[in-house]
């Protein structure tokens, strides 16, 4: 006989919350797999979309910022620099917008089945990895084309991928929690994401920002992440205090997100 005992009481903070989360890891995998599996179902081009979108964005940024505005790229081909920034940005943006709606699009699950709710937005962000890996493959192809070899720093890349994941997770948790109650946030997120593309160093290098503003600029966590990405892949210069600042911001946002989520998740099924 199992020793599991569940006590259900109002306002009871789940003592075994994190252990429960671990126990449900298979559900996490299955949900992430589902989101990947259905991502490009019933589209004509299918997975090609994961190639077309970033490549088009790269061309536009390269033409506007590189050719027309003639911004510096720190010695690497401009297109390559743009793509190396686009990769973590797209991952972050897709993860954030999909995860923010994850509970609402899965209303049926939330109101009919118990599972630690945090699984849902987390699995949704994880599903955005599929596009990320395809992007990584394109990046490798481009580097081969330009005859650029990555250095030893490439082994540190997973750390910054994880950082991008956490950067998306924190705000997602917060927005998801609030979105269940107030659907207004469904309209706020696409706007924020669009806006964020221009305030983050995606189409340009963050070296164009005056030195005295760089730390302040790094309050945008994507600044540190994108800079570090370029440093890993393309040996661009990096402003480490900025990366440190971004890490701090990511951690704070994650903490705020988890706190908000846990405060409200018990009422999700009633409100959704």
């Amino acid at each position, binding site marked *: *006989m199992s020793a599991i005992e569940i006590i*259900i009481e109002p306002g009871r903070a789940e003592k075994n919350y994190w252990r429960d989360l671990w126990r449900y890891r298979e559900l996490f995998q299955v949900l992430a797999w589902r989101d990947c599996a259905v991502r490009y179902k*019933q589209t004509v081009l299918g997975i090609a979309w994961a190639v077309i979108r970033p490549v088009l964005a790269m061309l536009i940024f390269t033409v506007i910022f590189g050719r027309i505005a003639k911004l510096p790229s720190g010695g690497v081909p401009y297109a390559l620099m743009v793509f190396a920034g686009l990769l973590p940005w797209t991952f972050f943006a897709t993860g954030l917008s999909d995860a923010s709606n994850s509970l609402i699009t899965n209303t049926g699950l939330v109101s009919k089945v118990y599972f630690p709710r945090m699984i849902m937005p987390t699995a949704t962000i994880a599903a955005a990895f599929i596009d990320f890996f395809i992007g990584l493959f394109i990046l490798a192809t481009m580097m081969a084309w330009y005859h650029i070899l990555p250095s030893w720093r490439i082994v540190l890349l997973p750390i910054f991928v994880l950082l991008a994941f956490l950067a998306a997770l924190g705000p997602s948790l917060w927005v998801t929690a609030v979105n269940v109650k107030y659907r207004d946030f469904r309209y706020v997120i696409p706007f924020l994401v669009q806006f964020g593309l221009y305030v983050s160093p995606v189409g340009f290098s963050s070296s164009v920002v005056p030195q005295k503003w760089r730390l302040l600029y790094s309050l945008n966590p994507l600044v540190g992440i994108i800079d570090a990405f370029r440093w890993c892949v393309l040996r661009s210069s990096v402003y480490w205090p900025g990366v440190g600042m971004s890490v701090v911001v990511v951690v704070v946002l994650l903490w705020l997100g988890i706190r908000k989520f846990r405060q409200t998740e018990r009422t999700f099924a009633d409100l959704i």
Partner: protein
Amino acid sequence: MRNEVVIRVENLGKSYLIGHEMANGRSHESLREAVGRQARNIVRAALDVSRGRQIIHGNKIEEFWALSDVSFEVTRGEVLGIIGRNGAGKSTLLKILSRITEPTRGRATIKGRVASLLEVGTGFHQDLTGRENIYLNGAILGMSRAEIKSKFDEIVDFAEIEKFLDTPVKRYSSGMYVRLAFAVAAHLEPEILIIDEVLAVGDVVFQRKCLGKMKTTANSGRTVLFVSHNMQTVAGLTERAILLQGGRMVAMGKSDEIIEQYLAEQGPTNTVYQQTASGTHPEITRVELHTSRSGQLQQFGKPMTIDVEIHAPEPVPNAAVSFQIMTSRHQPVLHVLNLDSEVPMLRSAGTHRLRCLFPRLRLYPGTYYLNFYLGASEPRRVLEAPHQICPFEVAVLDEVREFYWYPDNALYVEDVQWTSQVIVAEGASGKPVLQVHSGLQD
């Protein structure tokens, strides 16, 4: 450890806040007023948001207790039925026990791995194939991948969808979809199973198969909480039941007693068809059906009486009265007839009463109604025919048999006599030697 309490519910309650839009007494509202009201609502909503409160529409807010003060215990291996009308709090109770929603008051303790089945096919994804959905749905219901893998063939077999395993479920017929969904759920093996009304779907044959599977589940020592509107299913599957009414628990006890109490609240023991006589021609003025139990519930094998009153302004020569017992699917089961030449009737002016007694009603469990006919032979004519009257339900309450009483298995049960004897004895070869046994059974 059969008497170990595995579910203990103490004073459980759940309230919701609901808003009403109160009318301001006038039927019209000017645009200016409407805009003003909207603006006030937005301001109030913004205030609510800033305080982190839920937005409730309407200008009058009320606290509504969907469930209040419910306490009971369930021991290991017990199958408990939960009955009550819509809105009695059944689903709320199941949702709290499944940890989907939180109670407002009280406490519940559950020992063991719980799986709840509040809906068939929760989380099915239209674009995924049957095979993929088995894994998805299984994981959602709490099965591990290894568990699903080991039961995969059994599930596919049960659902009878081998050929369509790699077709997206959106191309499935609704029957196939439900079969697949239920097949996954039927193979859950938790220690405690919580089931909401889920058998109301699928075709009859499959429903019967599911009932059989649930019965084995119930007999395998698993604890089951079961909500259903089908009283026959509750009576057949559960030993004990609780009755909820308006969020409160009003009774708990043996299933058949609780079912009777529930049905008694639904209505009187007799169903009556009544019509005022016009006085111009012979008419059926009243049909009264007396069932063996209250709530229009007729127990299988018990007497049932039908009283018919006919008003005849003048004698009806060669009168004929008959009725059909129809199933809820409008299929006739019995035709019962009386002719004047058999039991004389309506030979004088006035109101007459005819009584028809079924000493031992042997209709199969289900819902039925009557179609009546009043007529005369020579000249042959139908004088009046009130149809679809006096609905009633037949149920088996105490005579539970293995492999029997599945809904729609039959319409009628006949007394038979079985005999069994050994015709070629194989003696000590190890095969059992059957004893001659005979008896009267249904």
